[in-house]
């Protein structure tokens, strides 16, 4: 009797260790895993290559400005950073226009950008909309705000040495932008009557930051091939022991970046493990809420790393990619 009991205890202990090891290796049991079958992917916008209204400019392989390493299709794509109705904005820089769509992909209007000495269309690389009638487009060196008729409201210049690759937040008083080439996030002040932006604060050595308040932002770092960290950082304080969350995977991670946030200020961190695309939903206090996992069929066709994905307030994910001579924007939403 005793022998049998001892044997059962041994079996139980082995089983316990196996379950514990599995739970630890899979990152714990608490965060929810949502698989592709639970995600509805719907193509909401399809644009051909060209200059007509239904088209967007795409550099053909024989064009002089075609690149094997950078985006040859859209310059940028964003969702309005608004607490009310959100819309999608597509910067078709080489055709001198911005296209506005509903979040269901219905075409609303075109905002014309006139080429001038102040605006060189081939230099435009990003777009930002806070909602309403004002839209901003930017090059590495300057930002141009336009009204819905395409008329210039303001042109603001970044200080020398800062190369803007993405606008993270913009209002009447300040602009927070990211210099991807030099890995710097910086906040600038808009001074009335002056076209020059004044730097208020900056933080160096950050990858793919996302602003969660005026003062705080999150950024990610892939320390080793299978360990992705998200750090909570502040412009004013540089502490050694920053708050962070570590995501450990069984496969090497690539193409990682924070793509946006929802109404609850949860941030969406996208990363790939092999050809599997993962989106980790992380709360502002750095808790992993959920990981959405799906087979990414189109990740290889994305090239504009800073402006090809965004997140709506309802948690819908929008992704732009090119397929042959078409630009496609897909909306991913949980069923």
């Amino acid at each position, binding site marked *: 009797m005793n022998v049998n009991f001892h044997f059962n205890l041994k079996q139980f202990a082995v089983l316990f260790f196996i379950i514990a090891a599995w739970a630890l290796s899979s990152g714990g049991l608490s965060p929810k895993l949502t698989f592709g079958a639970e995600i509805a992917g719907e193509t909401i916008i399809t644009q051909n290559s060209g200059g007509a209204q239904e088209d967007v400019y795409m550099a053909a392989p024989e064009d002089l400005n075609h690149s094997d390493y950078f985006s040859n299709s859209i310059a940028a794509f964003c969702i309005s950073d608004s607490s009310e109705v959100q819309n999608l904005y597509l910067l078709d820089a080489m055709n001198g226009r911005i296209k506005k769509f509903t979040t269901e992909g219905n075409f609303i209007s075109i905002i014309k950008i006139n080429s001038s000495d102040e605006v060189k269309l081939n230099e435009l690389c990003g777009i930002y909309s806070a909602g309403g009638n004002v839209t901003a487009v930017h090059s590495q060196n300057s930002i141009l705000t336009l009204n819905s008729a395409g008329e210039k409201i303001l042109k603001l210049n970044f200080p020398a040495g800062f190369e803007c690759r993405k606008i993270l937040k913009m209002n009447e008083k300040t602009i927070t932008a990211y210099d991807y*080439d030099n890995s710097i996030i910086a906040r600038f002040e808009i001074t009335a009557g002056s076209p020059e932006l004044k730097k208020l604060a900056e933080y160096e050595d950050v990858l793919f930051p996302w602003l969660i308040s005026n003062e705080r932002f999150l950024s990610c770092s892939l320390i080793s091939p299978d360990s992705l960290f998200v750090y909570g950082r502040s412009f004013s304080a540089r502490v050694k022991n920053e708050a962070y969350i570590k995501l450990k995977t069984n496969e090497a991670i690539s193409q990682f970046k924070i793509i946006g946030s929802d109404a609850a200020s949860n941030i969406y961190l996208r990363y790939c493990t*092999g050809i599997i695309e993962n989106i980790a939903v992380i709360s502002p206090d750095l808790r992993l809420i959920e990981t959405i996992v799906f087979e990414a069929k189109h990740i290889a066709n994305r090239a504009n790393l800073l402006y090809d994905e965004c997140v709506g307030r309802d948690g819908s994910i929008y992704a732009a990619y090119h397929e042959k001579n078409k630009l496609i924007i897909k909306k991913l939403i949980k069923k």
Partner: protein
Amino acid sequence: MKFKNIILKIHIFFIAFFLFSCLCRAEENGALNIPISDDLQHAGFLTSYKRHYPYGFKILRDGSLYLVNTPKKSVMQFDFMGRHIKTYSGKDENFSSCTDICFDNDGMLYVASLESMQVIKLDMLSNEISRFGSYGTGESALKSIYQIEIAGGKKLFVQDTLSGKINVYSSAGTFIKKIECNVAGFYLTAKGQLIYMRHSPACGYSINFLDSNARTPRKIFALGMNAVAGLEFIGCDQKGNFYMAAPIGHPFSSKEKEVIVYNSSAIRFSNYRVKNSALGRQFFIFGDGSLYSAEPDTPNGSDSRPTKISIKKY
């Protein structure tokens, strides 16, 4: 009975491990074997305070392979069938401690010599035409030479890994500019655009692009991997994929290297293990994406004298 079970489990474990390791390895597809001996027509090997192998090799578009036969102060040429065609040698000082080589569109050979810390331009008969660079700590000077390449416009790019830079010289030998680069290896596109990697402790590795007329580089994408030591950039293929290699384990004692391939959208889509070799430049990537690796054999343990260098295609 219990003992038999344990033996069976150990067997299953080893079979599974063997199958897994086979899957992890890239498919090896043919090899060019170059014998190592004292014969003038063979690759050289010297043992002094350290072991001296040929520095590396390059393959041209026509498929001919050039082995930098550093211990014998020469460059060996093989045709696409692997037949030995020619040996470049001449004045000792021109080929002394030679590292990398390259050819321009006129068929002129450029040899990097660590002895003079210069790149020497030679004609087909190994006659010296001109020299580039010098030893020193100034902007135009060099402290080491890891790789040399010629751009279409005849600009010469010389990587000095010790100083963490790539120097660019005109065809006349004039210093043009310095590009900060602290990761070994770079690649020149057919249009003369430079692709290279940088590493920072906080952000890890990144792949950068510098157009031939641009002043500032653009980041193609950030790879991260801050903690990975000893990563080297091998190059790109015609599809825009990026190839790099990292030692598995400690960089100075690793027996294998992991070759990692990223596509232009920053997806890590392939990785495989190859033998780590003692050559200065072990890898070469051909335009079609074939990876070549130079691996000397060291029979009966690593301390013995190698008998051949196998240039394997993966």
